[in-house]
């Protein structure tokens, strides 16, 4: 009898253990209504718990927590709980939790991920009751917002403008030491830029020990390639057709190769695998580096002396306007499985569309704003006084164009464009071969 009881208890315990692995339910309130034009509504005043997932970035999360505290003060019935993951774990957690429907109510997403999750039915469309698409388009810059619009529907709101092109980290001390002066009045043409950057490069025994301009990292190459293509008047992505094997593509590669040939960078020694651009710039093995403004807060603690002589120097445009491709930015979305969508969207709106709150988050996180209101006037001044290196960017953010909706943007950037263009710059393929390979491979990813 005792043995039977013991066996029964063991089996019961194992079954309970097997079934109990899920995450805690999201809220302390009844199930919500189905998604539609309006989000599931909660009875007014009812206790609501909002779970928010973000990736681990202390300055980003400090910004979120401050806003959440303010929101909870204004809405005492709402309790906001943050769960954070390191970047790689976050990506994998999203991939496994969304199909299993165990994700949080609000999910921090990078713009270029949004549509792939939205197309899978994992993200809730933003209800018109929160803000219409037209209203949001009027408030936000095109490039960051582009990532959150899928088939004409809005699936979240960006909070920052992720920029990797348009200006470069530039070491003024090295420039002054070698007598490079064109930068002081701004580079009107690539010839002026090359003249400065050539002087700043150092070659010893035929080996480049300091690059004049390190643009040969993966993000640098991919973003520069697509931005120059746009500046030359091309349109690389139209109705899911990717075209770069064109005269504009040739001009783009020729300009990039020219920068190598005149000795600004040795792509064999300066790339993602060796001398990564951020490390290289702050170790002063590169005098200028193509990388977004997020690099300064990342490195300024350890390399204060280099940061002190660093400015962001705008790059010249080969077109009429300094149009450039940009990869949207971090923002907030709401899970389609959330039972508290209305409360979730209300918090998202509070954080992202209120210009004072959005600015507060940009100031806390050290990011460029996605809201048009915050790139001009008093708000812009506040940003620049806190982050002086933002100034050159604020002048041309409006020219940013969303890089486009690819089935898998990272695949295009890191598996196709970067290795193929780097191979070309290293002298292992012709421009025509490179463009044909890129076009076929990227187009193949749409099938």
């Amino acid at each position, binding site marked *: 009898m005792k043995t039977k009881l013991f066996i029964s208890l063991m089996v019961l315990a194992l079954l309970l253990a097997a079934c109990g692995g899920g995450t805690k339910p999201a809220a302390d309130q009844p199930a919500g209504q189905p998604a539609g034009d309006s989000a599931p509504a909660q009875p007014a005043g009812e206790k609501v718990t909002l779970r928010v997932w973000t990736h681990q970035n202390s300055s980003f999360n400090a910004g979120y927590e401050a806003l959440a505290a303010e929101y909870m003060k204004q809405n005492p019935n709402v309790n906001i709980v943050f769960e954070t993951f390191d970047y790689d774990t976050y990506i994998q957690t999203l991939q496994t939790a969304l199909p299993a429907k165990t994700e949080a109510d609000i999910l921090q997403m990078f713009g270029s991920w949004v549509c792939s999750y939205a197309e899978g039915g994992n993200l809730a469309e933003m209800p018109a009751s929160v803000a219409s698409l037209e209203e949001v388009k009027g408030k936000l810059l095109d490039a960051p917002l582009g990532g959150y619009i899928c088939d004409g529907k809005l699936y979240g709101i960006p909070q920052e403008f992720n920029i990797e092109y348009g200006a470069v980290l530039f070491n003024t001390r090295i420039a002054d030491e070698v007598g490079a002066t064109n930068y002081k009045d701004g580079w009107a043409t690539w010839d002026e830029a090359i003249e400065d950057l050539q002087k700043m490069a150092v070659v010893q025994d035929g080996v480049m020990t300091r690059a004049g301009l390190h643009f040969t990292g993966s993000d640098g190459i991919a973003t520069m390639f697509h931005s120059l293509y746009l500046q030359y008047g091309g349109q690389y992505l139209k109705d899911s057709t990717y075209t770069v094997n064109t005269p504009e593509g040739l001009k783009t590669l020729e300009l990039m190769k020219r920068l190598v040939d005149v000795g600004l960078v040795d792509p064999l020694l300066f790339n993602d695998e*060796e001398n990564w651009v951020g490390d290289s710039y702050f170790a002063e093995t590169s005098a200028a580096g193509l990388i977004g403004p997020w690099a300064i807060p990342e490195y300024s603690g350890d390399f204060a002396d280099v940061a002190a002589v660093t400015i962001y120097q705008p790059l010249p445009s080969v077109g009429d306007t300094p149009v450039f491709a940009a990869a949207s930015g971090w923002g907030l979305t709401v899970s389609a499985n959330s039972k508290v969508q209305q409360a979730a969207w209300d918090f998202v709106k509070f954080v992202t569309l209120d210009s004072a709150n959005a600015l507060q988050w940009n100031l806390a996180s050290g990011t460029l704003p996605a809201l048009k209101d915050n790139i001009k006037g008093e708000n812009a001044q506040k940003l620049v006084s806190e982050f002086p290196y933002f100034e050159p960017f604020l002048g041309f953010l409006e020219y940013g164009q969303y890089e486009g909706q690819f089935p898998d943007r990272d695949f295009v950037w890191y598996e196709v464009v970067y290795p193929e263009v780097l191979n070309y710059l290293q002298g292992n393929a012709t421009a025509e071969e490179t463009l044909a390979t890129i076009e076929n491979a990227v187009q193949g990813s749409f099938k």
Partner: protein
Amino acid sequence: MALSTWPGWQRLFSGRDSAKKRFVALAIIPLLLFMVFWTVFPLLWGSALAFFDYSPRRMGGFLGFGGDNPFVGLQNFQKMLYSSPDAPLEVQQFHTGVKTTLLFVTLVVPLNLLVTLPLAFMIESVNKRVKGIFRTLFFLPVLAPSVGVAIMWGYVFHPQRGLLNAILGGVTGKLVAINWTGDPSLVVAGIPVALFAVIVAYLWQDLGYNMVIFIAALQGIPQTIKDAALIDGANSWQLLTRIVIPLLMPTILLTAILTMISAFQVFDIVQVMTDGGPQGQTQVLLLHIYNYAFRYQKMGWAAAVSIVMFLMILSISLLQNRLLNTELEY
């Protein structure tokens, strides 16, 4: 029919040893459940994925299958057979991965045996007092984490800060910046230098493992057989080639298979040292599987490649077993 009335169940817990049987069942059930949950189920699920165009980003039906992750039958496997230049990138990379992995395995297995077997002989022949020190020294890298080993060797091969170039620079009196792991034009006898660099790091870490197995096998050869050979007039070379090596054949077979399987599964060293570059020259199959499963979320494709990789290892193991199979008793 209730479980308690099932005849098999009753037989299992009746008879003379029923208490013992119940204890055995009780001990096995948790392990069985653990295995079913963590091994059998993932294995079956992973195998099933290969027949779907599955991405975890898309919403599917039960276990993610169906819906936006449709059943595609053998399509993933058929794609692997495309050989035209305009084949999708994943197919071209798969072909590269197969070639690179086979090349890696072909080089690593004999090189490993060529180094570890003589090393084991030498360590076995030294004074007992220092034998332990050598054994420990050569085994230590096995205990080091692969990522640490890869980072260390990455520094050795670094074009500007690397030890190897510093030595060459010291010898030539000039600054040397050869990019051993990043220059696709560096090829020796048709083999990329970057792959050699990875192999050096891999061998350095892996040597001690086979060496310990060989030492144990050498110690297992009865002294009487060696003495008999010596009495019959065999010299040291003959003792080695006619007696010791033939008696070690089962161990050589075992280490060859184990090394081959582990070489097929090389991943972390490659990912950290080269990430498959330059130009895919070190893109091994497991890295390809990882990239497509977890970076690009094409899990259906990655699962299909995993099955192919499993079949490759299985067939080569069987072939090796057939070719090198020896039955020895002593």
